[in-house]
């Protein structure tokens, strides 16, 4: 809502405050002021000029040579505007004037003729192009009425005004009018304001002789009032109305339209003027539209309606979509003589439906949608009729023809001072509360500390105790509330075990050298199914899609964090940042339904994506590219940290390198995978070798056991033995290690591969693997014979299970 300060000051005296002070007060008591700006950039030296004569410039076809009376003197001015004419009153920038954009006006010669100033267009005076009336868009502005040469044109055009921009929250529909703003400001500064009574003179002939009103759906349209105004002369509105519309961001059109818009701004009540002769009947029937009914609206669009929309008809065809837009057929035109003026109350939800279905949000619809003041509907009609009579030469017929089932009752709310204080933590006295209610102009009956309040209908948001609590608090001032701390029994706050674990896992990845990313949960449909862990893949029928996505980029919920993470890698690589190690702990969304009806299961996963160099030490000529084992080392570290053993099995996944991928299991369950991204997918993302892992963090958390007891450090020494084995190159090192552990139990505590050899001196298709074994008995020192026996056992087992031979 744009509030003209000059207009406001005529409703309520705010001259004691600077615009900034006033903005601060309004903001602190109720409505956020989003800005205070001049209506136009400052201009000086612009006065009214009377064009005494206007002739062709002798040396230029498109220029006129004018003699302009500017009060104290007559100036010769060359003007290029097509609409300049003798007898006009115009705005003249005299020599020495400064126009917006710091444009200084000087005496000059144009094509050999002296020009002592400039006749201005509204745009040149700083008026926003969109607020300039159609007839002046391509030329100079012409004053519509009697103004005197030499008068300050800036003042006359209200270009010295300031505009307070209010950011209205949906509950404050009351402030969508100047009257409402004046009530609000009055309460804020403890001033006084009341909306004046309308002064309407009518002829004796009743409007009901001309028109009848019939409402079919009283719930959607509880009030419809029709006024009839005859003998109207359509023309420009008086300057003050144009000025106020311009300041409020509404372009002046003609007196009839301007007056309905003016009353909309003044009262907050949208009105509609039909050309009665073009309306084509003497009966107004409001009803639900028929399915498929078509109306051509004022903007020349054909609109197809449904019974969800309400229309104003002449008994046959629709002439307006109620509360949203009038029809083209009965639009007020220059030759309109008789006005049928509508003042109605349309149900907010019906207007909301129509405006959203037709994409028509207007000054009217937004007000109806939030609910207009039922006690101001008919008054607004009277006010418009009054103005049409004064400024459009109209004759107003007596009375308003109406259908009326409108509830105009005031809401009753009772408040107790002690409860107010208990809720706010204050010590406000009943006297102060009475004072606050008077400032708000709420009528009330006081009974000791209890107030029985009638909330005015303009404040439709006041319904119950808490609403009044807010009214009292905001006028009393939030600054005056004390600072206290909650009194209730205190509890120990803290993180749950899983929250602690999540932080622990993240800290681990960071310690291991990975940067945390946060990527989008909504991704492309194609990406939503890529790089999905096999156990997720089995469960999720298809990725969950949005009903109406805004773009293909973000249309489906991810089943894996990895595609968006690869996108992040790709973004960096495109910017020459090639060495990247990222992790993310976030949610994926698994639905077991083809057509989703239930909330998908949201599972926390820990994923990583690495590419480029892992370690680089240039002056020592050392480089280590990220490879499978770098990433596996990181995953193994996590396994060790959480004390959950992971098993790795070679696996094949659609988007992964078929030879460099492992499925990871923990506690016998599949929990994720690790490996190199399939080269085709790497290429699609513009990436070189890229390795990823993806783990079910939630499963890890559930398998995690918080260590209770400390394990004693073994007192007896362990015995270390190495063993080198020759096996087929297809035998997995992990399988041999598992066999060693099994055969060596319980004495073998640890098995580590320390050498892998293939090539020279090795039979084709064979490889040598060397392991270090650690034997330990926590209760005594092991004897050599015992170790020998266990070692023998192990050798037999690997020979039997893997055809492994001791390397000679």
């Amino acid at each position, binding site marked *: 809502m744009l509030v003209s300060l000059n207009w406001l000051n005529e409703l309520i005296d705010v001259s004691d405050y600077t615009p900034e002070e006033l903005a601060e007060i309004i*903001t602190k008591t109720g409505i956020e002021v989003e800005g205070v700006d001049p209506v136009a950039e400052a201009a000086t030296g612009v006065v009214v000029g009377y064009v005494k004569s206007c002739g062709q410039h002798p040396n230029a076809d498109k220029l006129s040579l004018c003699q302009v009376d500017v009060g104290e003197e007559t100036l010769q001015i060359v003007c290029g505007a097509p609409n300049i004419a003798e007898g006009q009153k115009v705005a003249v920038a005299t020599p020495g004037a400064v126009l917006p954009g710091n444009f200084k006006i000087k005496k000059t010669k144009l094509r050999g003729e002296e020009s002592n100033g400039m006749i201005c267009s509204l745009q040149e005076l700083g008026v926003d192009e969109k607020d300039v009336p159609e007839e002046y868009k391509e030329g100079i502005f012409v004053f519509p009425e009697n103004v005197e040469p030499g008068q300050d044109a800036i003042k006359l055009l209200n270009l010295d005004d300031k505009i307070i921009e209010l950011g209205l929250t949906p509950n404050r529909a009351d402030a969508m009018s100047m009257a409402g703003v004046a009530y609000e400001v009055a309460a804020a500064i403890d001033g006084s304001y009341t909306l004046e009574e309308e002064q309407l003179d009518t002829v004796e002939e009743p409007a009901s002789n001309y028109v009848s009103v019939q409402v079919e759906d009283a719930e959607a349209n509880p009030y419809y009032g029709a006024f009839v105004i005859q003998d109207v002369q359509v023309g420009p509105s008086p300057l003050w109305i144009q000025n106020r519309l311009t300041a409020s961001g509404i372009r002046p059109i003609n007196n009839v339209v301007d007056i309905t818009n003016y009353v909309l701004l003044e009262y907050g009540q949208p009105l509609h003027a039909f050309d009665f002769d073009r309306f084509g009947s003497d009966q107004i029937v409001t009803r639900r539209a028929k399915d498929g009914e078509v109306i051509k609206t004022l903007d020349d669009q054909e609109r197809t309606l449904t019974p969800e929309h309400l229309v104003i008809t002449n008994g046959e065809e629709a002439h307006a979509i109620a509360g949203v837009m009038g029809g083209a057929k009965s639009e007020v035109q220059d030759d309109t003589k008789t006005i049928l003026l509508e003042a109605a109350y349309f149900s907010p939800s019906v207007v909301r439906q129509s405006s959203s279905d037709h994409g028509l949000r207007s000054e009217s619809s937004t007000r109806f949608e939030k609910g207009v003041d039922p006690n101001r509907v008919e008054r607004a009609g009277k006010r418009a009729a009054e103005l049409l009579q004064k400024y459009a030469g109209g004759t107003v017929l007596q009375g308003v023809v109406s259908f009326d089932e409108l509830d105009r009752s005031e809401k009753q709310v009772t408040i107790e001072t002690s409860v107010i204080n208990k*809720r706010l933590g204050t010590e406000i006295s009943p006297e102060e509360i009475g004072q606050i209610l008077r400032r708000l102009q709420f009528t009330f009956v006081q009974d000791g500390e209890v107030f029985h309040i009638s909330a005015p209908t303009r404040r439709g948001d006041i319904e119950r105790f808490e609403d009044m609590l807010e009214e009292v608090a*905001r006028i009393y001032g939030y600054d005056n509330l004390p600072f206290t701390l909650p009194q209730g029994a205190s509890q120990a706050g803290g993180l749950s075990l899983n929250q602690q674990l999540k932080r622990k896992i993240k800290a681990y990845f960071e310690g291991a050298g990975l940067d945390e*990313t946060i990527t989008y949960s909504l991704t492309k449909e194609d990406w939503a199914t890529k790089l999905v862990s096999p156990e997720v893949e089995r469960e999720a029928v298809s990725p969950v*899609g949005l009903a109406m996505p805004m773009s293909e980029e973000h249309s489906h919920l991810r089943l894996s964090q990895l595609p968006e993470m690869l996108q992040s890698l790709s973004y960096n690589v495109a910017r020459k940042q090639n060495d990247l190690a990222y992790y993310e702990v976030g949610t994926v969304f698994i639905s077991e339904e083809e057509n989703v009806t239930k909330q*998908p299961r*949201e599972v926390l996963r820990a994923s990583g994506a690495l590419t480029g160099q892992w370690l680089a030490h240039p002056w020592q000529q050392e480089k280590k590219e990220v490879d499978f084992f770098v990433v596996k080392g990181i995953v193994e570290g996590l396994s060790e940290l959480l004390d959950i053993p992971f098993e790795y099995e070679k696996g094949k996944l659609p988007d992964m390198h078929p030879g460099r991928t492992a499925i990871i299991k923990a506690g016998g369950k599949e929990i994720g995978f690790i490996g190199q991204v399939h080269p085709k997918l790497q290429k699609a993302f513009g990436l070189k070798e890229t390795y990823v892992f993806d783990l079910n963090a939630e499963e890890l958390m559930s398998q995690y056991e918080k260590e209770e007891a400390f394990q004693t450090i073994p007192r007896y020494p362990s015995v270390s033995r190495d063993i080198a084995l020759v096996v087929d190159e297809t035998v997995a090192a992990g399988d041999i290690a598992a066999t060693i552990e099994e055969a060596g139990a319980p004495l073998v505590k640890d098995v580590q591969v320390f050498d892998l050899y293939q090539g020279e001196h090795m039979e084709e298709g064979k490889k040598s693997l060397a392991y270090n074994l650690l034997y330990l008995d926590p209760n005594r020192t092991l004897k050599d014979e015992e170790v020998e026996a266990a070692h023998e056992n192990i050798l037999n087992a690997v020979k039997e299970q893997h055809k492994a031979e001791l390397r000679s």
Partner: protein
Amino acid sequence: MKERLEQLKQEALQKVDQATDVQGLKDVRVEYLGKKGPITEVLRGMGKLSKEERPVIGQLANEVRESIAEAIDSKQSRLEDEALEKQLEEESIDVTLPGRPVQVGGPHLLTSIVEEIEDLFIGMGFEIKEGPEVETDYYNFEALNLPKGHPARDMQDSFYVTEELLMRTHTSPVQARTMGQKNGQEPVKMICPGKVYRRDTDDATHSHQFTQMEGLLVDKDVRMSDLKGVLNTFAKQMFGEDRDIRLRPSFFPFTEPSVEMDISCKMCGGEGCSVCKQTGWIEILGAGMVHPNVLEMAGYDPEEYSGFAFGMGPERIAMLKYGVDDIRHFYTNDSRFLKQYHKA
């Protein structure tokens, strides 16, 4: 013989002195102190001496041996030190060359902010609660006093999955769920951080996905002044002791009264500058007293229980605190951005 011993001593000491390396000293040792050396020879010739002279000469011979041995030892250790020093000098390196790199990773800036706020409220006795990102219409809207067709639903255009399911538009449903679990009996004191989603086109100030952190306290006799006190503690710890807060009226369907909290502008100290749009204040969060309809729907008796709630955007806080100028930075994961905030 006395003279002979003295002479040998002088000779030996002179040779020790002249020796330049460990081998030279070894030679001296063998020459003078060895079994075939002159001193042994002198001792062997002692038989010719008288009873009285024997012990005197014997003692003198021992003294001469010891002083020669001592001189050799001391010279040897000096030579060894010199050799070591020389060797160490040769081993010196350029200490200004860079070290072997260790990979350093770090948290995302939003995580740092979220955890800082979490820890701050944990200190005030709050729990951290989480909830689903795909919510039911009931918990996202209806339980929060936003029935179907409520105009305020416009304020947060949503991504629907089905008619009844949507991407949550705020983390408030976690509050509704948590309250619902208490059967209207126990107090609630919680913070709920998480991702939320709205139908916005991504640009410098809008993101279809962003982070929200909300807090809720429900108990008997919770006062609005408690809200002011808690928010003041939060603001001072988060933004600095010298910052003031102010509350001003606002509107949220789930609170009544509703307020917005501003903090005094650090850039201008409240005088007004471009950062605070000349107002001296910067908007930080929305808050209010829990709407009685919300309490009722969760099973609390609003006559007996009251509460406050607040909500803020970690992106906005990060943008204010660190001057991040484009919200998209949080989600493109530019490595230069991520690395910059490791210490945040």
